[in-house]
């Protein structure tokens, strides 16, 4: 089982793709580099959500909380308390992880069905955004402006543009690797058993509480860390972007389009949709605001109707057929 993970780790293709990607800042204009960096943020977020939403089959809409804590809390601690952002990242990640554990525990303790889980996590997400918007320490409704990024690595600064891209590339790679690792570990098999039939899983002795909590904690910590890196890149902690349920909905839709529960599915979805959306926004954003979301929505509906399991399985099927035809 674990063999698959080590095979990925030692695969020349994996490292080759990463190495080529790492040279992109030397080839692209800053505009396209910005789009790629954003895509990597969403690759990382969608992959971290996939651990809970895809593998365990629990559509959590609470991930905006983890992203928001990672972004808003670490910024607030830096600006209001002078806490180094590396430490802030760690504290936020721990709090997010604890919150994730609490949510998973509530889910287990009260035996929430799939639908109730969606609803409760959505309620938590709404409460989170109301709290942040009403609490001045976290920036309130107007948000927080971070100091300029001077490239001081010890202060969690990466020098904007190129440095931020490399940081995001590393984070996205880690998130995808964690997906590969979990999918090929006992945890991954347990999660999929829980997704496919929770009662049967319980009957054969799968410790549901333990695996749900583990999955949620890993997912929450990753989302929180990505949130901190994202806010450092944006330099503006905007509550309407970072702790609004809309960011979770975007992530869920990217993951669905790419392929839920697959290691590379959410990454594929984000890599296809974010550049499409950003280019549309750049070209038509001033005349037709909202066009990119409109297109996302159409793509999602189309993909779900045509290939409900996502684009990755569809592409794999086509590839296999093409190979057999030769």
């Amino acid at each position, binding site marked *: 089982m674990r063999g698959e993970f080590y095979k990925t780790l030692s695969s020349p293709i994996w490292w080759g793709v990463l190495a080529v990607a790492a040279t992109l800042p030397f080839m692209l204009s800053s505009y396209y580099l910005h789009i790629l960096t954003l895509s990597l943020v969403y690759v990382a977020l969608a992959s971290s959500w996939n651990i809970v939403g895809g593998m365990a*089959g629990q*559509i959590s809409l609470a991930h905006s909380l983890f992203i928001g804590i990672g972004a808003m809390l670490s910024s607030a601690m830096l600006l209001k308390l002078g806490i180094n952002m590396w430490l802030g990242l760690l504290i936020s990640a721990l709090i997010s992880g604890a919150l994730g554990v609490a949510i998973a525990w*509530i889910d287990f303790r*009260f035996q*929430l069905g*799939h*639908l*109730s889980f*969606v*609803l*409760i996590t*959505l*309620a*938590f997400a*709404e*409460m989170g955004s*109301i*709290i942040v*918007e*009403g*609490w001045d320490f976290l920036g309130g409704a107007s948000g927080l402006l971070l100091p300029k990024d001077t490239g001081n690595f010890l202060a969690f600064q990466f020098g904007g543009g190129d440095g931020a891209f490399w940081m995001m590339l590393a984070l996205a790679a880690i998130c995808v690797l964690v997906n590969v690792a979990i999918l090929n570990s006992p945890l991954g098999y347990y999660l999929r058993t829980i997704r496919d039939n929770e009662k049967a899983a319980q009957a054969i002795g799968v410790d549901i509480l333990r695996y749900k909590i583990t999955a949620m904690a890993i997912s929450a910590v990753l989302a929180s860390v990505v949130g901190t890196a994202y806010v450092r890149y944006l330099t503006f902690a905007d509550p309407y972007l970072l702790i609004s*349920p*809309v960011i979770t*909905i975007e992530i*869920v*839709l990217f993951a*669905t389009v790419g392929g839920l529960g697959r290691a590379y599915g959410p990454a594929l979805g984000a890599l296809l949709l974010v550049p499409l959306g950003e280019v549309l926004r750049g070209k038509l954003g001033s005349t*037709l*605001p*909202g*066009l990119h*979301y*409109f297109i*996302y*929505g*159409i*793509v*999602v*509906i189309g993909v*779900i*109707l045509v290939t*409900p399991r996502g684009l990755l399985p569809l592409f794999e099927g086509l590839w296999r057929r093409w190979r057999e035809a030769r």
Partner: protein
Amino acid sequence: MSELYQALAQGLLIGSSYGLLALGMGLVYGVSGVVNFSHGDFISLGMFMCLALYSALSLDPYVSVIITVPVMTAIGALVYLFLIRPMVGHQFLMVVQLTLGLSLVLQNGILMVFGGQPARTPSVVESKLLLLGDVVLRVPHLIAFAVSFVLAGGLYVMLRSTDFGRSIRAVHQNAHAAALMGIDVGRVQVMTFALGIGILALAATLLLPGTPIQPTQGLRYTVITLLVVVLGGMTNFVGIMLGGLVIGIAEAFGTIYLEGPLGLLMPYLIFVLIMLFRPQGLTWSSSR
């Protein structure tokens, strides 16, 4: 003391419209097991249609109903036929993602047509007030209250004593058995979904006077509707109307008695507590 009465009255009046919003969702859930996450965006759609009709023909929102209700009903039928029915038989959770996608489409379609500025649709009764002792009541709220309950009563009678109503209840209780009894289950599901969206057009008009509207409001209405439906025990008709009143009152008390964000949190807190400790909803009847 007058503050208390004021909160109570305001909550009851607003809550009745919330109940109406939720009836449509409850009906649809009961018959097809679909929870529509674009519910609130359909409310937006209804409101912006009223705005368009006002700008084009200067129709009062209460008159626009003649146009918005049939149009929205037709849209509901099409959405069910072409988007939701193909998903039946697939994993139930895919419908969640599908309607989330639909929500993005509706919300941003409205944004592209109307722009992002908050807008208002005037009505003749908009600023009329009624004084009951110390309590100030806004006439649009009174109209909303009356219409909501008349409509809820009408729906109740329809469900009890017409053939269509009986077939809805039959499908709700046991779709398989209903099909064996010769009920066209597919047709009932389409018509219920269309009816649910049609009711939303009415509810949109009732909520509209005096309320600034903007395209991004949809998700908030979806969440409120979900709160009410869950409080009401998902499919219990009386329970849902009651749930609407509870959420309305919670909101009114929250905004009057608690400062800032805490007040806004009230309905969500109540929702989470009820979800955890009384997942079957507020009413005590043992039927599901």
